[in-house]
């Protein structure tokens, strides 16, 4: 069960654990104790035990897997769409003996988290989506994360002005080969390719319009979290998600990268919600 050797980011790198999910290797980082919370990464920021995860782990059992073709998890030729990753994550829950979990996902990971909840609601205690991709909101399209001038990354993702130690080496797409060296560049190019495999065609799933409302009906509580100055995902998306999920929106100060630049506040929002649900139960 071997994982992929990857270039190590300058900060927050930790060695992942290899977990066999029905025979498929998945790289997993895990820490803390309490209610289990699975966090699903977006199209960047893998290979790290992020400050956000560390804060969440103060009160929760945080499980952070990497999807096929991301971080240390090998790409799989059979991954053609979200469904394949959802099935793999269901197998991962089995492998980790986690019958029911809270799940949170960022960006592309929010889309995956929502699909996981849609298909296996009995396994999901709550769904938290952070700046989630996956909906089409007419007249408010998402920015194109696959075609952006690297010179714009800082401004577009809200990295500019953030504490250097939080965003150092955090590149939300393919920049220049000079940045991080050829190996780092090629790795990011590969990861973005894995993201494209899932969401180049299509960049939204109209089926979610009809599927997400089923979650409230099935008793899966949800929460939508967004950045106050998100230039990638217009705020109209947050409200559309909230409308479909029958839940509220909490905004965190920051741009699209708010989980990276405001880990304390983001962790507070997520843990407060999870604690509230646990108490309600």
């Amino acid at each position: 069960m071997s994982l992929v050797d990857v270039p190590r980011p300058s900060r927050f790198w930790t060695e992942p654990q290899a977990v066999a999910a029905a025979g498929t290797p998945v790289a997993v980082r895990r820490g803390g104790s309490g209610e289990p919370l699975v966090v699903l990464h977006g199209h960047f920021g893998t290979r790290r035990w992020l400050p956000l995860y560390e804060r969440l782990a103060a009160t929760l059992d945080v499980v952070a897997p990497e999807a096929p073709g991301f971080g240390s998890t090998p790409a799989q030729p059979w991954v053609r769409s979200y469904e394949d990753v959802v099935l793999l994550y269901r197998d991962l829950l089995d492998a980790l003996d986690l019958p029911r979990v809270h799940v949170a996902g960022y960006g592309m990971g929010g889309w995956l988290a929502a699909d996981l909840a849609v298909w296996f609601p009995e396994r999901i205690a709550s769904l938290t989506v952070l700046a989630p991709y996956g909906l089409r909101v007419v007249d408010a399209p998402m920015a194109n994360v696959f075609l952006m001038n690297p010179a714009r990354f800082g401004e577009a993702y809200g990295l500019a002005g953030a504490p250097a130690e939080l965003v150092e080496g955090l590149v939300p797409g393919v920049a220049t080969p000079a940045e991080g060296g050829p190996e780092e560049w090629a790795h990011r190019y590969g990861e973005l390719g894995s993201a494209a495999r899932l969401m180049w065609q299509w960049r939204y799933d109209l089926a979610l319009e009809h599927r997400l409302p089923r979650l409230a009906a099935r008793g899966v509580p949800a929460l939508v979290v967004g950045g106050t100055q998100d230039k990638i995902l217009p705020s109209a998306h947050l409200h559309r998600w909230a409308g479909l999920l029958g839940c509220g929106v909490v905004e965190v100060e920051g741009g699209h990268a708010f989980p990276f630049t405001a880990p304390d506040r983001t962790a507070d929002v997520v843990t407060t919600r999870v604690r509230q649900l646990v108490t309600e139960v």
Partner: protein
Amino acid sequence: MANRLQFYNFSLFPYPFIPPGEDIESSWITIPNSLFDPQRAHKIFTEYLEQLVLSEKLGYDGIIVNEHHQNAFGTIAAPNVWAGWLAARTSHIRIGVIGNALPLHQNPLRVAEEIAMLDVISGGRIISGHVRGMGAEYHSSGMDPTTSKARFWEAHDLILRAWTEDGPFTHQGEHYDIEWANIWPKPVQRPHPPIWMPGTGSTETIEEVAKRRFSYMQTTTSNWITKKSFALFRRTCEETYDYTPEPTQLGRVIPTYVAETDAQAYREFLPHAMWFFRTGLKIPMHHLMPPGYNTAEAMLRTIRGRAAAGVKNFWEMSYDELIDSGHIIVGSPQTVVDAYAQQAEEYGLGMAVSAGGHLGAMPNWMVLKNMTLMAEEVMPHFREPDGKPDHLRVDRPVPHTSSGLAATTPEPRYRPVVRLTDGRDLPTDTGHIVEVIGDGSTEPPTDTPPVPQAAVDGAWRTAGDAEPVVPEQAGRRVGS
């Protein structure tokens, strides 16, 4: 008897009326098409077409168009349309579509049909280039770059099968599922038109082209990379596939400008070559390489290779660097002859592409001068004593005249007929003659079965056939 080198005029149809490369992020994808003036385009596009038509009279071996989308560098979005126009205006020169970007099309059979139609109407003069399309074009089309390579090969194989095998057959692949593959028309060149595949020197492309015995066309690169690619191609043919490649399996896009003297050529070509490299080819990496278009491993090899060889971006090179590295050839007829002769001998170059034609923002008069000098002062050095391009020494697959066709083509297997009420089949070519039709009627016979016999037993009844004609395999063959 074959010439030492073939000459191809390759036109990209740029629209050069845009700001300089330094003032734009890219000449692709995002450059606003409000800059495009159709009236101005009418003038330059018709000039480009006439330049290609003139190539036949000048003695070129072939003329080439290609497919690009949504950019100012090369505006031929529908190359098969242009090839049709060129086929109508010429009679013997070869016409290359180098190429159709297969994965950018939903149905590969559309390309198979269009090339086949072009081959039929041109009398078998088409060269079919197959390409993946520039990375930028995946942004522009919405097509999935992550499956592009796999779809390219599947589409290519399907097209070849459609050209070479009788239909109908069923294609069940990874990316295309076509129940009824049965193209009309089929190409006139047998087994199929020559195939060219362009590449930048990637080992994988060279391996695939060598294996299939197609022609490899090196796109605009330095002498160093070209020499290395050609050597690898020849070695792969000889050592892996046990054959010696023909010179016409190695082509190179090498924009060439020839004038009266070296100094004159240098001065005249400078602004046009520089527009081409500095503005036309201004494609930043984030436009050129959409995610998944290549693998991370392939990109790492490319980056390391480029770094080791000191390869610069096109728009970062000076005119002298472009000349010294061999990206372009510029000079007097003798200088150009020497450069081509050296590449033919040392690299194995068999086809010079972009050999004296339009480039960048070159005015019409300068293109005509370039082409004329190329034809009259350079080409003869590489020709057999008869001075002909190679294609004039071989018969076309289709005779040029109706009398030639009538004299050499066997009777068709079926003649068109009309089934008469009395059961006789009336030949359409003589059916208007009273002695032939007699008192025959075309009223449907009252006892005609509602379903044609062919549909019942997989057979086709035809005039003069006592028994129904049963195809070798009435059912479709299934395969991928």
